[in-house]
């Protein structure tokens, strides 16, 4: 069950009219491709995607699940939006409530265990190994954890576990973390336990119906068998503009932090029909990813250019992410920026700048929103959003 409901308000204009999991990533992917592909690569063939914010593009993107091999007649991928019931109808009130409202969906497949995932994390993981340890430990719930630096630990849900990885304490975003094992928002539940706790949580009017705040602490308090599953690979929560930008940058370099090219655990996506990218004689490209269907006449350094983009002659792009089908017109200069899907940057515009010229709190990634048109000669300062 992939929680994909979030509006992603910290991603500002990028999610103005689309759900966060539909945000483009890495030239030709969307955020939802990561948990979906991980599921398929782990042998999971029944997936529900829970969403309630601007689901149109996400629905269209998922379609019948064919690009991920999830178009099977038994199981497959289902987009689960809130619906009216005979007695009541309500929106999803939190992560736990969203899953609770879909108990009947899960029940149709008679699961032994249910995996709860988040739709806005970038990582490659084989859930089969996690589920195997979950079963071996006879756990009620297994939580994937990542070692984080102690100074960042207060941003996460923090587990304290014994030498057998059995969790004895859980703190949600603690001021004084007692451990550095941070929850990745990936939970494997025994089905009966999940059902019981979700039902109880729903009846508790004081609960905010959230896994991290309510359900997991309750399991710990009840002395249930909770285990931590340690993950050592690349993982990034891309909930903010700068983390989304950073995760894209992590794909670049000779030895990238996240290697998309390896044959194992490939990330699948819906492919549109574009010819190869055309790289013109006057272009210059250094340490960059360029996806198919792009046409490049300009200069590109340390950047990601997505499918179907046009970069005109004498345009310059430095350390930036250009999302699908964007047009960068001649003589515009883009530094440390994210240019949204289908956006147009008209000629001689200047977007973003190097961090070294700014005080730390006044600098961030500049963002041009989806389908926006930046007028000619417009200057967009760092941290500004258009």
């Amino acid at each position, binding site marked *: 069950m992939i929680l994909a409901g979030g509006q992603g308000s910290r991603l500002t204009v990028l999610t103005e009219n689309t759900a966060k999991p539909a945000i483009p990533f*890495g*030239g*030709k992917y969307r955020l939802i491709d990561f948990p979906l592909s991980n599921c398929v690569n782990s042998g999971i063939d029944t997936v529900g995607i829970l969403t309630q914010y601007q689901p149109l593009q996400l629905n269209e993107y998922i379609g019948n699940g*064919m*690009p991920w091999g999830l178009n099977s007649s038994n199981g497959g991928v289902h987009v689960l939006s809130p619906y009216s019931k005979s007695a009541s109808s309500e929106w999803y009130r939190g992560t736990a409530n969203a899953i609770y409202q879909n108990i009947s969906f899960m029940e149709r497949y008679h699961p032994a265990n249910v995996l709860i995932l988040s739709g806005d994390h970038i990582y490659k993981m084989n859930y089969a190994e996690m589920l195997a340890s979950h079963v071996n430990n006879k756990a009620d719930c297994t939580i994937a954890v990542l070692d984080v630096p102690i100074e960042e630990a207060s941003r996460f849900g923090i587990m304290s576990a014994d030498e057998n990885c059995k969790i004895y304490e859980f703190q949600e975003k603690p001021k004084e973390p007692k451990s550095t094992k941070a929850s990745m928002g990936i939970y494997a539940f025994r089905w009966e336990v999940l059902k019981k706790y979700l039902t109880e949580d729903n009846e508790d009017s004081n609960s905010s119906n959230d896994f991290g705040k309510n359900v997991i602490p309750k399991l710990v308090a009840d002395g249930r068998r909770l285990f931590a599953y340690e993950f050592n690979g690349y993982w990034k929560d891309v909930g903010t503009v700068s983390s989304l930008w950073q995760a894209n940058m992590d794909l*670049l370099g*000779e030895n990238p932090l996240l290697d*998309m*090219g390896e044959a194992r655990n*490939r*990330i*699948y*996506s819906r*492919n*549109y*029909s*574009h*010819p*190869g*990218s*055309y*790289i*013109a*004689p*006057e*272009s210059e*490209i*250094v*340490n*960059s*990813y*360029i*996806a*198919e269907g792009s046409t490049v006449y300009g200069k*590109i350094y340390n950047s*990601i*250019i*997505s*499918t179907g983009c046009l970069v005109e002659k004498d345009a310059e792009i430095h350390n930036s992410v250009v999302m699908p089908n964007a047009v960068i017109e001649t003589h515009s200069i883009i530094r440390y920026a994210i240019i949204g899907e289908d956006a147009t940057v008209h000629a001689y515009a200047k977007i973003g700048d190097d961090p070294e010229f700014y005080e730390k709190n006044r600098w961030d990634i500049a963002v041009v929103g989806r389908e926006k048109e930046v007028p000619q000669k417009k200057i967009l300062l760092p941290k500004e959003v258009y």
Partner: protein
Amino acid sequence: MGIIFSNIHDSSLGELTNNRTVASLPFGGRYRQIDFVLSNMSNSGINYIGIITKYNYRSLMDHLGSCNDWDLNRKNEGVVFLPPFATGDMGVYKGKLEALYSAVHFINNPRYDYVVVCDSTVLCNLNFRPAIRHHIQSGCDVTVIAKKVSEVPDRKSQFLIKANNRNRITEILIDTYVRPDTYEGMGMFIFSRKVLMEALEEAYSKGLTHLERDYLQRKFNENTIKLSVYAFDGFVLDNQDIPSYYANNMALLNKSVRDGLFKNDFPIYTKVRDEVPTYYGEGSRITDCLVADGCTIHGTAENSILFRGVSVAPDAQIYSSIIMQGTKVGRGAVLECAILDKNVTVRDGTVLIGTPDHPVIVQKGETA
């Protein structure tokens, strides 16, 4: 319905079709030749398609799979492979007419009144809908889809026609030098199904094999069929032999050719391979190239076509070449006017230099 020939011109493309059909010959960075005609049919609403194969068609079946990527995985229609129907009294076919006869049970389907019969080597972006409308309105037995000859090249053409101003064909010339005021056939014909069925019965009983010569030209000269021409005015790339295959790949570096072949509202589909975008390293110098996804580039490439998953090592130099899927070019290698088939390994320092008329060809999987 549509019929596509996958093998008819195999012999003209030499080493490149040793182990595959012309239909599955890679073209233009990420396509196989058949993608063009198949996408045109799919985009034109022709969803019931027979592919006539003869031999070497494993690569074609692998490429097409269930035809989902062409939106042709349909409940009641879709793509049907038609391998040779070799029985005691009829061996593997020699010409198109004979090949069509072996598919007679597929063609004789009363749900379809018209049959579009196509080669797979003529690449274009063509909507069959107006052509079929033209055929119906003309009242003719067969419509030939052809391109008007604008400049006269010094080469032979398999199928030249002359037509009057009402688009009725007045002369058919086979295997002759191209001359002005003619149309050059694109290997695409629209038949009324009943006409085609009669033609196939007659061809079988008389032992005729060649579609253009034994049927169209003979019947036309006997004045027993009416032929119409549908003039296509878009770009046409005809891969008749290795020099034209090489030149047509290179033509894709031209924006007007790309715009004529690849249209957002009428796309050319191909098999999806889930490759990552191409990575351009610190020392890469790519100019005037068409580059598919999944490549890793550290060297130099100019005026070249790089297919999916090609790797170019530092200091390698590639000029005016076609590098197919999965090929690895080693450090310091120099390639000029070369066609490297799939999964070729070019050792460090290898030098391969050809000419546009005689490009160096390295066969699939070999080491150079």
